[in-house]
């Protein structure tokens, strides 16, 4: 079974076992290692990618189900010179420690801010429920995310 995906706006073909989780296709076949495989059960969010625009846990997606889908990964959200707003806020607030969780957080929260430009702290926490960080204490991450909201509110 040959599966065609558009990954970060480029067409990619996969012809292995269609039950292979998308995260393994990205990491092992396409060498896009920004997406992390950590818990492999949908709890940690480190493997989050956008499938047809929606954040999804790529460890739980058999690639065969995605034939024809558009997948965006952390490698495709911005350029090295111009980070997206979430990446920039994380850098500005110096919140990253080991960094394992951050690609997933960026994918989750980039999409979230497209649907809710002015969330309160509780809404941000609720949106982050599926993204676990083993290193940090979360509050600075939330502070960083709150700053995006404030920036957007300030012309």
């Amino acid at each position: 079974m040959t599966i065609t995906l558009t990954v970060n706006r480029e067409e990619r073909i996969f012809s292995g076992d269609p039950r292979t989780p998308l995260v393994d296709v990205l990491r092992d076949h396409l060498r896009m290692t920004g997406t992390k495989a950590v818990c492999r059960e949908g709890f940690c969010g480190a493997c989050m990618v956008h499938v047809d625009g929606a954040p999804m846990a790529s460890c739980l997606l058999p690639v065969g189900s995605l034939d024809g889908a558009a997948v965006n990964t952390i490698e495709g959200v911005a350029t090295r010179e111009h980070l997206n707003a979430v990446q920039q806020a994380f850098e500005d607030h110096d919140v990253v420690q080991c960094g394992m969780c951050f690609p997933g957080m960026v994918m989750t929260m980039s999409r979230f801010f497209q649907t809710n430009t002015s969330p309160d702290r509780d809404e941000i926490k609720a949106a982050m429920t599926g993204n676990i960080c083993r290193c940090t204490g979360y509050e600075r991450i939330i502070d960083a995310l709150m700053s995006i909201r404030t920036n957007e509110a300030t012309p």
Partner: protein
Amino acid sequence: MDITPYPKLFLANDLNEALRALRELADSAIPLAGATWVMRAPLRCETADQTLIDLSRIEALRTINIDQQRAVIGALATHEQIANALNGYNDLAALAQAAGHSANPAIRRMATIGGNICTAEFAAADLVPALLALDARLEFEGLDGSRTQTMAAFLDGRATRAHTDLVTRLIIPRTQRMSTHARLTLRKAGDYPVANLSVSIALDASGKISAATVAAGAVEAVAKRWTGFEEAIIGHAPSPEKMQMIAKTCLEEFDGRDAADAPGWYRLRVLPGLAADAFSTLQETTLGRAM
């Protein structure tokens, strides 16, 4: 039987294709809905080399229709879809809340109601007690025709069920009742509940409970109605304190499930508190307006 036309993941374009594949592949295949349970099989040391019959392209199974008589929910409706579509209906609130608070946002975007109720090994499913409390019926389609079944009857035979037909829709009668869902997780969010409770009640003119349907999940291997509690609360005002007191006297009908997340005795211990939580949510929302 020739099974070579089927790849290891078969994308069914319609229900008939899925049913034919199920019949031809029999035990060598399993239906795939949201994939959130099936894809974790290796973590449970299940290495069966089964073909996945992917139902996700069958759009007809995704629809949700709500009218004054009933809510009809397609088996492939996701938790996110259900939480949004049922928002604001007092009688359906238990299911809306169960769908809106389970797991985490990404899982709610993927996991389906059909997958949730058909996964016999998943004792902590949130939607199952909600569907029991709301008196849902399941509709099945097979190559030989369709049938319906109550949620309780389905759960009785679920573990040994042959996949000769597929759950296609859940049908919930609309009522004048109010309902809610409470769950206790060990972490504040994003965890499976160690116990959950769905409550649907009607009040008489004096504000006392005149009818009740209550179901508990995660406490035993399979969610079930809490009939002793349902009977015991009739005629009482629905105050959280009173409900908690009554719940403490009705625990003998459960045999708590020991598992890695919590021992069985703990699940029983927390049930009365969950009953209080459920009724205080009712008080803050629908009951507060009705009383």
